[in-house]
């Protein structure tokens, strides 16, 4: 298989088969929090995609070129979280300066992204899966962002319709969202084993 096929397969697998939200339970908090309206969900998804691509590639570089060379793997988690916090901070500053309108619409989501487990989770999974080239790591990170956006948008669409449904009182809000997520996860399980 050539490089392009590998990259394409990696992308599909992280978007659909190993979707971070449905199979690894990452990024559930924002998933429950902002999936109420589809436009907000999309904004959040884009912001996460941007940050996760940046930090996925950056943590890979730091891990492979600095930490492993220096034998400092034990400080990996501290470095990762600092890189992510830094990346979020950078994105925030850049947007505020050059794209004020985009910054306005992202505004509230940006600080939240630091504690989004999808991002740190992905960086850790890249390390766990022993991805050994930068390109694949970058594609995986981008795919993870797209997968998150997809999951959160599907959910937002369903929740907009749930508003019209007659949900038992005690299940309104988070519980019914979790149950819906469970059914979605069941649907996504159908993709497992697609790539061998």
């Amino acid at each position, binding site marked *: 298989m050539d490089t392009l096929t*590998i990259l394409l397969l990696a992308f599909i697998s992280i978007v659909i088969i190993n979707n971070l939200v449905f199979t690894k339970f990452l990024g559930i908090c924002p998933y429950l929090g902002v999936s109420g309206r589809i436009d907000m969900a999309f904004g959040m998804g884009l912001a996460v995609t941007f940050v996760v691509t940046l930090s996925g590639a950056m943590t890979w570089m730091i891990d492979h070129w600095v930490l492993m060379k220096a034998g400092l793997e034990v400080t990996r988690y501290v470095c990762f979280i600092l890189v992510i916090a830094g990346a979020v901070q950078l994105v925030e500053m850049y947007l505020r300066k050059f794209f004020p309108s985009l910054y306005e619409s992202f505004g509230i989501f940006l600080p939240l992204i630091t504690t989004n487990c999808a991002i740190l989770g992905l960086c850790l999974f890249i390390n766990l899966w022993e991805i050994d080239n930068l390109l694949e790591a970058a594609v995986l990170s981008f795919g993870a962002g797209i997968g998150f956006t997809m999951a959160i948008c599907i959910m937002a669409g369903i929740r907009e319709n749930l508003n019209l449904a007659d949900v038992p009182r005690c299940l309104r809000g988070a519980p019914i969202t979790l149950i819906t997520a469970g059914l979605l996860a069941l649907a996504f399980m159908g993709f*497992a084993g697609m*790539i*061998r």
Partner: protein
Amino acid sequence: MSNIKHFFEQSWLLIVSSFFFGLLIAVANAAWSERIVQNEIDKRNRLMTDLIADANSFDVAAQAVEIPDTKAKVVKTDIYRALDGSGRTVGFAFIAVGSGFQDKIKLVIAVDGKCEKFLGFKVLASNETPGFGDKIKDSYFSSQFRDAPAGKLQLVKTGDDKKIDSEIVAISGATVSSEAVVKIFNTYIDTVREHLQTKGSAGNGK
């Protein structure tokens, strides 16, 4: 000058605590790292001892053997030699990795001292579906590998699971996981056998 002063005023706590936490982590690491390495070795040895009954001690027979993967990548693995009480080679074992139904499957595979027969496999790490894919750990499936000829294996849907040959009967409901295990065997065995037989490590102490 005032810039630098301002910088330190704002961030001295950050710098001091970074040093402090760095020290704390270093101490913890220094205290426990030996144990962590030992744990990994222990686990590997335990699994290998389960597979190779007469094994008493292990040493490394070959380091970082390059295995051509199906994805045009090269993976490296160490081959361990198992010795019995009197120092004879009774088998070899290596760690093999491949992609399963959901995630990677890590196996410990053992072959006999002449590298002619498999001695079976143990699952080091897998994330297969409970109740289906994780049946690869069950004896129905894993015993079929014991004493099978060390060469390419083939997966069949129906057949006699008691008969020991190169045909492996799949677990019903977990074809993908069964396939994955057989594929891992096939990816590794040729290179490992070649390595052991040409380098003359196999069959030495016999």
